[in-house]
């Protein structure tokens, strides 16, 4: 990843563009972790506030906000539930006629899917969702979580095994 020249994060414009680039991902990462939107937003906001307040002393803003966020996150252990928003722009839906049975079956499957996600460990869940929903590459995830790429792959592999087993056992 190319590192831009160290810009003055105390500059409002620089800060704003950094915020726009990073805040969503950080907040979503926390959301995947805790399944709680409010908690995720609070921690994210708090981390960026701290960045703003200490802007003169911060060398690496991205690692700073993640470090602050992870520290705040230490106080949380509960997992609520990640709620998935399914796109209505389903190409398949437009092309195919969906029988009621199909729609029902889809609903049923998504229930099992949700349950399977909730059954993952926090480590597996965050790695998997960062990749699948945030679209982050394994290398980026490794940086965010502070682990190796291999470790990320192990988590994702483990997540998929666990999910497929859970979904199959539902039948």
């Amino acid at each position, binding site marked *: 990843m190319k590192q831009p020249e160290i810009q003055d994060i105390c500059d409002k414009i620089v800060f704003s563009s950094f915020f726009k680039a990073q805040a*969503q991902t950080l907040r979503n990462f926390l959301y995947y972790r805790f399944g709680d939107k409010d908690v995720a937003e609070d921690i994210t906001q708090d981390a960026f506030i701290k960045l*703003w307040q200490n802007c003169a002393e911060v060398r690496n803003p991205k690692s700073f906000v993640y470090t602050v966020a992870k520290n705040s996150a230490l106080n949380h252990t509960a997992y609520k539930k990640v709620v998935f928003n399914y796109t209505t722009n389903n190409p398949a839906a437009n092309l195919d006629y969906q029988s009621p049975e199909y729609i029902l079956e889809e609903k049923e499957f998504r229930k099992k899917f949700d349950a399977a996600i909730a059954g993952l460990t926090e480590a597996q869940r965050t790695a998997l969702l960062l990749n699948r929903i945030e679209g982050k590459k394994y290398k980026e995830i490794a940086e965010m979580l502070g682990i190796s790429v291999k470790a990320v792959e192990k988590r*994702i592999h483990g997540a998929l095994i666990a999910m*497929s087993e859970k*979904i199959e056992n539902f039948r």
Partner: protein
Amino acid sequence: MNDDTQLARWLAGQLDNDELEVLKNSPRYATLVRIQQNFALIERPNIEDDKMMETIFKQEKRKPKVVPLYSKVWFKAVAASIVIIIGLGIIFTLPQKNSAPNGQTMAFALPDASKVILNAGSQSHYSSLNWDDNRSVDLTGEAYFEVAKGKTFAVHTNLGTVTVLGTHFNVKARGSRFDVVCYEGRVRVQFNGHTTILTAHKGLTVDNGILTGAVTTVTNEKPAWLTGELVFTKEKLAAVIAELERKYDVQINADYRSNQTFTGYLPTNNIDSALRSLALLYPFKVEKRGDTILLKPVDGKK
């Protein structure tokens, strides 16, 4: 073959054709594909950026801490210290009282590190104000002193006063009997208008204001009672009994009189054997009534 990362590599499209074929034959492949497809339909959650940004910029940046030199807290702290110092000053100059109850001795240090050991049933008073210029202790009963070298040190009793410069000595003022023994150095003893100097290993006894006998020579380095012994030199029975009462913290009613004085040791670990030893010289019976010990003459003799 890394079996614990395979599915991650599959998801990322990193499996070669052979590996992929093997996976396709796996029973869970259909479910895996379904999972993959479902993920593709999930939208990335969005947050309202702008509101959060506003809130962030509203926060005040941290200013460097400016510590005022003379803050309210500082003044309070100083005021408190002064009060405490004055308070301690008052406490330290109040008359210091020490006492040893029956059955115990009590050791303490004076402001100049002079040492005092009170025998059972004794009390002392002194004022620490200006101690170095005015070393003076009021004593009731008996105490052993090890006085640090310095200005005059005086022990006042109701029977007489002992003045020293720097020395070890024992003062005993009981009833009408005033005993002083000097173990080291020199002491000046004043009683009833008389003054005598005692040098090391010399002792005197004053009874009813009169010097009894000559100045005696003492061989031990320290008084016997410091090591818990009961030693008597020509002591009247009543005084011996009083000493036993203080040593053992018991009540003894002697319905027995004798003018015979007692010189010698008595055991310090057992009141009964102490009384038996006495009874060898003084024929009395020992009876116990509740917490009180009664000494009765034998056969009605007095």
